[in-house]
Every structure is written in structure tokens, then in C-alpha cells.
């Protein structure tokens, strides 16, 4: 996999902006989960289109996801992905129940996880709104279980229309003091990337 942009000055600056947004989201998540969950920025990268899914480790594994669009002055997608076990544990903790061992997520579990995505996305985008001066907010969350790469394909479509590279941002999670296989993938539309770069240069 090519990785020629980690030292790109614009990406380094963008990383600082994403780190600030991630910190804001971490505080919100910690409050929502009574301190169980926190997050930190993992990486910001510009990768060739065909490498996006492997870079984000969203291949042909079936993932549980909450997808939120970005609306307002600019668009994009936020994808929150979970491994099954820890996702169920989070839902159980939020609902004050034992872990559901049925194969299907109940409506209540889905609702708890979607609200988690909503809180995280709101905090994240509120901070980006403050930093860029442009209004950004999340759409209603959408719960789905599918191949990660399939979802990512549609999420990067806006960037794919104008470029053969996509800029993606990934965040790591800690749940009960252990790193877990969750991720938030932030895929801004190209115009939002440009605006963020402009804000950083201002």
C-alpha cells in the first residue's frame, strides 16, 4: 500500500484539527457512557481510491455500523464501526441490561448505539464548526450490518467524483481501559477538505 502523504504538511495540519474534534467527541462519549469509553485520533491519510478499504481495515468482514451524514454548509460521512461483542456490551451497559445473546440486535439496542453515534458525531462536528466557521451537523443515524468496504464505497463517492485519492480520518477507541476494535471513519467531501485547509492557513 502506498503511503506517500503522511508527512504532507497540509495533512499534518489537518491532523491537528481532527485531533481537536476527536478530543471534544471523547469528552462527550465519556459523559454518555459514564466514563467507559474514550477516543483518540489514530491517523489522517490520503490514500489511493483502491486502497481505502484495506487502509481502514474495512474489507469483506461483516461489521456493525452506524452511519451519519454531514449536513449544513458541506457534506460527507461519519461511520462508526463496532466489533460485535463490544458493541453488544456497550449497548447492554447503556441500557442497564445483561448482554443480549440473540443473533439479531433488538430495536432498543440499535437505538442505544445510534444515539451513541449521534452524540459522538454532534460533538465532533460542533468542534469542526467552531474551527472552520462553517455550519456542520449530523443527519439522523442509520444502523446497519454489512460488508465494511461496501459502506465505505458510498461514503467516499463525493471525493471519488473529483479525485483518485481520498482523505480519510480514523479514530481509536478505549472501552473499559482496553483498546477495542471500534473505529470512527470521517470522510469529508472535497469542498470540506478545502475549507478545512483554508481555515488552517488563516
Amino acid at each position, binding site marked *: 500500500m502506498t503511503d506517500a502523504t503522511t508527512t504532507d504538511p497540509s495533512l499534518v495540519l489537518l491532523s491537528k484539527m481532527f485531533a481537536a474534534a476527536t478530543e471534544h467527541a471523547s469528552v462527550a462519549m465519556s459523559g454518555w457512557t459514564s466514563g467507559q469509553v474514550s477516543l483518540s485520533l489514530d491517523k489522517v491519510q490520503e490514500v*489511493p*481510491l*483502491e*486502497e*481505502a*478499504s*484495506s487502509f481502514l481495515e474495512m*474489507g*469483506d468482514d*461483516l461489521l456493525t455500523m452506524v*452511519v451519519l*451524514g454531514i449536513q449544513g454548509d458541506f*457534506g460527507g*460521512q461519519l461511520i462508526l464501526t463496532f466489533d460485535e461483542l463490544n458493541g453488544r456490551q456497550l449497548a447492554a451497559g447503556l441500557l442497564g441490561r445483561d448482554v443480549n445473546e440473540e443473533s439479531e440486535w433488538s430495536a432498543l439496542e440499535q437505538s442505544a448505539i445510534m444515539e451513541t453515534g449521534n452524540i459522538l458525531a454532534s460533538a465532533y462536528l460542533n468542534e469542526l464548526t467552531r474551527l472552520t466557521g462553517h455550519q456542520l451537523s449530523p443527519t439522523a443515524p*442509520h444502523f*446497519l*450490518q*454489512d*460488508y465494511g*468496504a*461496501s*459502506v*465505505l*464505497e*458510498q461514503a*467516499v*463517492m*463525493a471525493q*471519488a*467524483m*473529483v479525485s*483518485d485519492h481520498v482523505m480519510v480520518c480514523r479514530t481509536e477507541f478505549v472501552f473499559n481501559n482496553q483498546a477495542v476494535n471500534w473505529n470512527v471513519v470521517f470522510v469529508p467531501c472535497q469542498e470540506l477538505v478545502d475549507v478545512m485547509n483554508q481555515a488552517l492557513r488563516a
Partner: protein
Amino acid sequence: MSIEVLNKEKAAVNVGMGQIALLEGNGEAKSVLGSCIGLVLYHERRKVGAVGHIVLPLSQDRPGPPGKFADTAVPHMLDQLLEKGGNPAGLIAKMAGGANMFGSSGPLQIGDANFAKVEELLEGLGIPIIGRHIGGDKGRRISFENQTGDLIVEIMGETAVIL
């Protein structure tokens, strides 16, 4: 960015967004699709096939690898197959994908447009589409086996389909 692999071995090559794989012998190719179209052009007698992962319908003079756009991918795949003796008269097509992953209310309903453009191009070239698994709102994992010409399509929670 475009992979042109003469995959004569059994190990499957992954075809990423905008890529094309050229197969001979018992080569295999795989991919995961959302709104993109996985297109197979195959010459059964010559046992050569091309698998494209098409992202957008029209290039509109935009730069990019030939596999990214339907209107560049189809001619490019044809050219590659011709070089391998794949007479256009003997070609068939199979395709999968074109989903709208976030439902009808999501952004960029590109799946339908991708499918329509690929179908239009193939019909214009007289290449029969003998198998299609298109649309919906779920992802697909596909595997193409060049030796048999089978395109296996998997959707989560459903029985796999062989085109």
C-alpha cells in the same frame, strides 16, 4: 492503479475501486461492492476474462484509471481481452452491485446510474448480459472463477447466488 494481472494461479486477486483484473486459466478475482458495479466480460471458449470495479458512470474528460468510469472501463476491458484472443463475438457479460447503501434518502444515488450506463454500453456493443444481480441497499461480495466462468455473489444473511 489499474491491475492487469494474468492470474493463472488459484490465489484470488482483489479488485479494488477503479481497478481491472485480467484473468486466464484458473485465475480468480474477488471484490466487495456497494454502489459500484462489478463487471465481468468473459470468453468461455478462450477462457479469458476481465473483471472491472466501476465507480462512476461517465468520465467526462476527468483524469483517472480506465477502470474507474463505465465509459472507459468497458472499452479498456474489451481491448485487453482482444489482445488475449477474446473475440468480441464470443464475449458474455455478468454484473453485480449498484446498491444504494444508505437507502433512497442517502446522498449520491449513484448505484442506479452506474448500472444503467454499463448496461447501455454493453447493449451498444452487442455483448449479451447473461447474469445480473443489481440494486437493493446491501453490499455484495463477489468472486469470479475464470475456469468455470461462475460469478458468485454473496449478500449478508442471504444464500449465495451463482451467475
